[in-house]
């Protein structure tokens, strides 16, 4: 049974890696958010695998998955709110042009 | 075995619905017409527009069809006649039908045409309006059944159908289902008079045939869902259970079809406003009322 757990964990790790690459390399706010979504997806896979194979009797694991899903939704809502405000003000959500946000 | 039977029932209902649709629009009852026009679609040239997003263009009609069939997979025709009696059936049908939006966005973006694209994105706005009105009435239904299993939901309506128990939920779900199936008066993404066919506009030949089949299947799936959630599914005297399911499903599908004939297309802004200022409060009220009833009435 450890095999399935390892497969799931490796998948989660690779999704996490792709997400990190995306969040760091993309210049557009929306694309960066996609990277973050992938990072969270990697986390979700791990959480479900841990719940299923290590602690199926405790439903806090599933609860945590729900919380992470909420975080994904919140991230989207706030991200797009900021993106619209930024786009309205500057006409772009490119990171390269957001130097004016530096303190 | 169940799979084949349900699929055949679905196809049969689609055929009947197409016949009725032809009857209401042309005034002639021609049982062979759907088959003939299906064959005609096969024979016609299927044109691909210039510089399309080929992957989306090809996938969209098929995805719409698959989604409609997947939705029907969890809906029982009779106590044991269901493809997959999932423990989360009532949630699963929501999940499957959420991909209608994805298919329409693909169909809108794929052909690289203005009408289609506006149609596709319009449906996204439409989803914002109707999505809550699909989920919240189903919540109230699941509350009464104390289960998400579709067969248990039908079982819970033995004696008193949900249409009587929670009429408000039925009305909201019926309207939202029509919006989800983008039938008139909610046909904003296709809107022949406004967008010249919208997401349908660039499809021809076989692809259009699949798209039409998918749209009719979607109507049947939603009618079947209405039957299962509100009209007591297979319950009914004399006739065998599957017959009752089919009769009710077809009745709901035809009424969806007819309602659109007698109404002008709704304005998108109105749809949004009514759904959020009226629909969602009513859906919440429905949940509260059902909750009280479940607690008070044994």
């Amino acid at each position, binding site marked *: 049974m450890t095999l399935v757990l390892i497969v799931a964990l490796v998948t989660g790790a690779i999704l996490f*890696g792709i997400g990190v690459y995306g969040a760091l390399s993309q210049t557009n706010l929306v694309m960066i958010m*996609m990277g973050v979504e992938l990072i969270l*997806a990697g986390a979700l896979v791990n959480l479900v695998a841990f719940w299923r194979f290590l602690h199926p009797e405790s439903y806090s694991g*599933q609860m945590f998955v729900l919380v992470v899903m909420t975080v994904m939704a919140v991230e989207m809502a*706030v991200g797009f709110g900021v993106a619209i405000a930024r786009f309205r003000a500057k006409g772009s959500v490119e990171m390269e042009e957001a130097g004016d946000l530096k303190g | 075995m169940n799979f084949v039977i349900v699929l055949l029932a679905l196809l049969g209902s689609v055929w009947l619905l197409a016949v009725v649709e032809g009857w209401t629009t042309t005034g002639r009852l021609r049982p062979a017409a759907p088959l003939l026009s299906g064959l005609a679609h096969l024979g016609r040239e299927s044109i691909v527009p210039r510089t399309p997003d080929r992957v989306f263009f090809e996938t969209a009609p098929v995805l719409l069809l698959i989604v409609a069939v997947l939705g029907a997979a969890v809906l029982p025709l009779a106590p044991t006649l269901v493809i997959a009696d999932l423990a989360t059936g009532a949630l699963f049908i929501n999940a499957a039908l959420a991909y209608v939006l994805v298919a329409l966005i693909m169909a809108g973006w794929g052909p690289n045409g203005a009408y289609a694209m506006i149609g596709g994105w319009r449906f996204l706005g439409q989803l914002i309006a109707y999505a809550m009105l699909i989920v919240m009435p189903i919540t109230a239904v699941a509350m009464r059944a104390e289960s998400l299993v579709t067969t248990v939901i039908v079982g819970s309506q033995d004696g008193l159908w949900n249409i009587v128990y929670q009429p408000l939920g039925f009305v909201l779900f019926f309207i939202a289902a029509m919006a989800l199936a983008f039938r008139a008066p909610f046909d904003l993404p296709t809107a022949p008079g406004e967008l010249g066919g919208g997401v349908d506009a660039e499809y021809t030949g076989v692809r259009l045939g699949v798209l039409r089949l998918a749209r009719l299947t979607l109507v049947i799936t939603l009618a079947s869902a209405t039957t299962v959630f509100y009209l007591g599914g297979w319950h009914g005297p004399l006739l065998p259970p599957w017959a009752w399911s089919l009769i009710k499903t077809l009745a709901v599908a035809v009424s969806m079809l007819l309602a659109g004939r007698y109404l002008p297309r709704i304005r998108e802004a109105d749809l949004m406003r009514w759904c959020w200022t009226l629909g969602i409060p009513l859906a919440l009220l429905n949940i509260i009322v059902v909750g009280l009833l479940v607690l008070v009435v044994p």
Partner: protein
Amino acid sequence: MYAQAFFVAVFGLAAIGFGVVVFRTSSMVRSALALLFSQTAVGCMFLAMQTEFLGVLQIMMMATEMSIMAIFMVMFMMDPGGMGGMDMTHQKRFSIGAGVVAAGVAIVVAFWADWGPVTAEAPDAAMQTRALGMELLGRSMLIFETAGITILTAMIAATAVAIPVQTTANIADKEDTE
């Protein structure tokens, strides 16, 4: 067990494959929908791991979420159709390094750690749904409610940020242009 490993692996590969496509394609709608299918594949992995409720929930939520992502992509990207072949990346080498290191470390930990005894049997789906409901409205109620309030706050905050600011300067500016 092997069947389960097979399905988890297949859906995992699909999730990774679509995840790669997200950053490889230059068409923004494709990118958003690739992310959607990656998330759907993750949902299918949940199903393969016998976590039915969460799997279906993941599949349902992501359809809407990523479609909305798609429309914002089209709005905010300079070249949404990807016809111009614009390069939208920076610090590429560093990012690849960071991604590989992050994934590598996690994989190494996955192999090295002692996960202890692994349960073979999962509770059946109906039981799970029921138990999760009990958990939500029992011990974890506060967390659940907090999550709900958080979403509500985020909705209000996001809307407030997105609505154009009506300052006097703004209005004067508008009148100037008209």
